């Protein structure tokens, strides 16, 4: 599934500031897109809009959802029911917190998307255990989600996001509270899903990952497309960027993406 954004502006209230302003980008199907920017730059809002988690419409501009077959539907034409089905069948989510259901064990947590699709308990449990095995975490199956560490919870959340083999996974700051070891594990899982190793149901090209992160170095290493935002506006052009559009030096990229961080008028609070 690809997304076409044209001059998207979004406000939470009619007289409020524009959280997103004139954002335009073509996010193609397949690949990993990193949405970069400082806190408050509108990254999560953009992700919520793309994932149709918001019940409000963009103030202006259009967002078009295009399936791999080319059929598109505009944001405003997506009814709540269609949006719900879209999220259920085609999207996966890895958020800052795992939001696991504490009273279920890991396998049942992973199987929640399948439950929502109406898959029988035995089938979804079996598939959850398969996924755990592929991720070399089969001993987690019967463990309560409440007993897991933060990294383990996030890994279970990744498996929950991929179990129904969605077309798009939205990952919002999935590494923000993780140590490097767990970050690498989760990245490895996401890479394996994106490359089709975890599931063979779809061609690798049809899997998209939209990653919102502060972790610039990791994003540069991991992503192929970039959408840097600053205070709701695109930093460069009105298009999505590829690695070649960004400076080679990571520090230069950091200056670009976090301009206030490097501003001469920067206050200690900004740090």
């Amino acid at each position: 599934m690809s997304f076409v954004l044209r001059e998207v502006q979004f406000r939470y209230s009619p007289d409020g500031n524009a959280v997103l302003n004139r954002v335009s980008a073509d996010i193609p199907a397949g690949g990993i897109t990193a949405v970069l920017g400082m806190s408050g730059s509108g990254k999560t809002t953009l992700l919520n809009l793309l994932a149709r988690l918001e019940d409000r419409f963009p103030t202006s501009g259009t967002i078009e959802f295009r399936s791999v077959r080319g059929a598109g539907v505009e944001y405003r034409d997506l009814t709540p029911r269609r949006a719900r089905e879209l999220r259920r069948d085609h999207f996966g989510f890895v958020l800052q917190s795992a939001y696991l259901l504490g009273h279920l064990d890991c396998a049942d947590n992973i199987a929640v998307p399948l439950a929502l699709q109406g898959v029988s308990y035995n089938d979804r449990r079996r598939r959850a255990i398969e996924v755990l095995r592929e991720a070399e975490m089969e001993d987690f199956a019967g463990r309560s989600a409440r007993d897991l560490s933060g990294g383990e919870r996030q890994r279970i959340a990744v498996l929950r996001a991929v179990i129904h083999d969605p077309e798009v996974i939205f990952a919002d700051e999935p590494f923000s509270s993780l140590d490097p070891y767990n970050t690498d594990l989760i990245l490895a899982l996401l890479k394996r899903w994106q490359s089709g190793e975890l599931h063979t149901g779809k061609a690798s090209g049809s899997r998209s990952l939209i990653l919102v992160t502060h972790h610039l170095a990791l994003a540069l290493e991991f992503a192929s497309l970039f959408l840097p935002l600053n205070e709701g506006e695109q930093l460069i052009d009105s298009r999505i960027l590829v690695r070649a559009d960004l400076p080679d030096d990571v520090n230069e990229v950091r200056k670009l993406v976090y301009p206030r961080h490097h501003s001469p008028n920067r206050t200690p609070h900004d740090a």
Partner: protein
Amino acid sequence: MIRFIARFAWQDVTDRSARRTTRVVFLAVAIVCAAIISPIGFALGVDRVSRARLERDPLVRCLWTGENNVRGRITPAVQQTIREKLRARIPTLDGVAGVYPFYNTEFQFLNSKGLPQPPLDGRTITLSSEGNDPLQSSRPTLNGRVLQQSTDVGLVVSPKFWKDLGFDPKSPPQSIKLYRLADDPIDVPIVDTMQAELPTFHLFILTEDYERELRRLCTFPSSDSIQTRPIPKGFPLDPDDLNADAKLVFKARGIDASYDERGGGRVWWILRWKASDPVNRNQLEPSLRTWQIILNELHSRQTNRFASEGEQQDLRVDTSRFVVPLPPKVEKYDMAAIYAPDLDSLVEESEIIPTIVAGESLLTVNTEMVEKVVRLQEQTKLMLRSLFIALGFLLLLAVFSIYFVQSLRADQQIAEIGMLRAMGMSSSAIRCVYLIEGFFIWLPAASFGVLGGSGLVWVCSWAWHRASPEEVSLGFRVPTFLVIGVLLGTILLTMVCIRLASRKALRISPSRALRAAE
């Protein structure tokens, strides 16, 4: 999906690692809910009157439930009205009034002063008055009277009987009335056996003294033909023997040499009583409300003799003409008719009639009963008022508790709900989760409440009356309607409260729910 939701809800409710405070709150609210429902069960249970008692006497029914089923309307003025109506229904006392065997009522006679006589120690006797009937031949010396209802049944009473009733045996009343209903008396003529021939009859009920006298007088072989037996207990009615084909066979062997053609034969009667159930009986024509004595006339008419011993076995009696046509057993009671009857019909059917007929002096028993019923009624009314006031507050507390707890749960679960909605769970499914969770909590509480309330009825009954609720007419039964009603009420209340409490979780978008969780 339903299984997932139910499992989700169940595991959520039974989650042992849930916050302690939450569990304490749940427990507390469940106890409050049980405490609320217990008095409801108590109040409703107490208000139930033993149906058996009600059915036994419609006037009690009236006194307890009140006219037109309005409690508290049996005031002294109403009681007076009832008495007047009763008196108006009773004809002028021109003789001896009795109550024909009816319901479970004993055969009761009042003397000329209106005082009740002890039950007659009657015995049945089978005789025939045809031809040279020895009884008729003994008539001149008998100096007795026969109360004859029909050719099938009669009462033979001795002079002592009249004396006991306060009459001069030499000038007894011309007739007495036996009452099946107040408006349905059976005018029983007094047949003077000294002056009139006895009509054909086959069954007598006579006093023991009379029987002794009869045997003394009838030395002719007929004395052997008189075969008597005590009236069976409950004869002719046994209310417990509903719809059973009661049979009584009276045998008379070797009646008389003059009955050669019937010698060795057997006269037998079959009694069938099919209408002992009050409800059934009330649906019958008045003429069918009494018991029927069936004589095997068919065989005798066809063969001019009674069936022999051997023939008896093969005899197929046409019982169809003797069987009281009854509707199928009435399973469903017309509660409106039972609990809100017309006052006049109550008066007509009341068992109080025979005792009230003699005047005010006989009302002492009734007054006692009425006072007892009214006293119980007053107690119950006071108790119910107190309970209902308390229940009002408790009900409000229950509503707030359910709403509060469910709101708390909705807030606690906002992140999980936000995530589930992000993953595509529908609002109705989420509402279902809340509902099932709610029912897992509230339904057991309601069940315990009903049980507790029922137990409370017993405890209070023993505390106040030193008797079971049944004995003091505070009816206690397995409260089926109460259980269903309370459970349905709980379901309704829970649904409303949960729907209100879960509105917040259902209305906000997934992104806002997730933001709220952070």
